[in-house]
């Protein structure tokens, strides 16, 4: 799986996330989720303990979405209960669908996060797109994880000073969180400035034709992936149009 061209990873992640957003049918969404999970597994290994660790934090969100949909969508067939706590088929369907969409988007993001800046450079160069695209997209994708790391590090500093955040008065807690969020923002801006200067120093805005040190050729695996994407998309389109 790691033999795939970087552009194939981007296309696969885009395909999965497009399916997550536009496909309304639960069986097709389930299929998209399974394919996305298999693709991610082939890429990063089927380490289900790690997957669980990553998804565990999102469970309260999933449950909240499910409960809201179950309680507030009063359409379709009555499945269980009565009056305000009645559960209808459409509510259950929507609750599961939204959770599947979130999981697909999360797994797609995980696929993209594995790509380095060089991978984006190779991928966009294949499409003859300017290097600025690779820079901006790479930077945007990595903002959230890098901000997350910065927050974790700041909280670690608080712990190492011997401060138990939970025992602090609310005002002090808010002060600490304010400093952390400001430093995260400053860090993101400062790093993007440095990255942009680094790119400028490479002369990427030069109008002459660029040469690229990093080149990747498409392999049979890439064509198999594209063929699978096309076949599944066509089957889906026929099924909804039929």
């Amino acid at each position, binding site marked *: 799986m790691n033999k795939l061209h970087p552009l194939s990873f981007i296309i696969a992640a885009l395909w999965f996330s497009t399916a997550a957003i536009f496909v309304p049918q639960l069986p097709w969404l389930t299929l998209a989720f399974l394919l996305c999970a298999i693709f991610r597994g082939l890429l990063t290994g089927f380490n289900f303990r790690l997957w669980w660790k990553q998804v565990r934090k999102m469970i309260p969100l999933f449950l909240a979405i499910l409960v809201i949909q179950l309680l507030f969508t009063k359409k379709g067939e009555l499945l269980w209960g009565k009056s305000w706590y009645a559960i209808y088929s459409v509510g259950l369907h929507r609750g599961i669908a939204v959770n599947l969409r979130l999981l697909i988007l999360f797994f797609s993001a995980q696929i993209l996060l594995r790509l380095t800046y060089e991978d984006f450079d190779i991928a966009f160069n294949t499409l003859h797109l300017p290097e600025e695209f690779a820079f901006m997209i790479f930077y945007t994708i990595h903002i959230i994880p890098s901000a997350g790391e910065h927050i974790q590090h*700041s909280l670690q500093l*608080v712990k*190492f*000073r011997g401060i*138990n955040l939970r025992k602090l008065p609310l005002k002090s807690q808010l002060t600490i969180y304010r400093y952390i969020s400001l*430093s995260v923002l*400053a860090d993101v801006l400062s790093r993007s400035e440095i990255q942009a200067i680094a790119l400028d120093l490479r002369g990427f805005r030069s109008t002459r034709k660029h040469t690229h040190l990093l080149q990747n050729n498409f392999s049979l695996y890439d064509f198999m992936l594209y063929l699978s994407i096309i076949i599944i998309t066509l089957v889906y389109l026929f099924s909804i149009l039929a």
Partner: protein
Amino acid sequence: MNSTLFQINNITFAYPKNPPLFQDFSFEIKQDDKILLYGANGSGKSTLLALLMGLLTPQQGNITLNDISVQELTPDRYNEVLYSRQNARMDLFGLVPRNDWELWHLALPDIFTEQSLFFVDSDLIAKYDTPYARLSGGELRAFSLLWLPLLQDRFWLLDEPTAGLDAKHKKDFVERCLNKNERGYLIVSHDPVLTENLFNRIILLEKGRLTQIK
């Protein structure tokens, strides 16, 4: 007083997809130990400090701080140790040095009083509200070591503390080490300014093994 502070018991640690850096490794650090740890680049000195602080978890064995596993330490247990990393920016909290002082003030309000700021030398206090991104590596390091005199009662774990410091700040740091009489320190360094008389143990870390030189 000279009881065990850190105890490393038969740990094995390896970074993913790498051979073990430490295998069946044991080491004891006492409260009053003044240790210099040195070794080649990549020998695992910084990793050892990260393991002591619970930032990394050994695959086998365990590490305790005052008989409590470092993986189970509550924030108040860290009151006994001061950890400074190789990258000084990572020791500093917030956006500007003032935020860092404010965090110390929250942790130790009786020690980090407004008067504590009078001890800071004028060059540094002039940059007290300067964002870290605008400070040099040496200035960041000086700020990260600024409060050592107020943290005498903690055991210092310092990773390359003199890297990037000018001669004046190095001299100040050596004086701080000489004057430290409550609890000891473990310093990772190759700087010749840190002379033998500052330490009661000098240890070479090589291929996951410790050799006591002094």
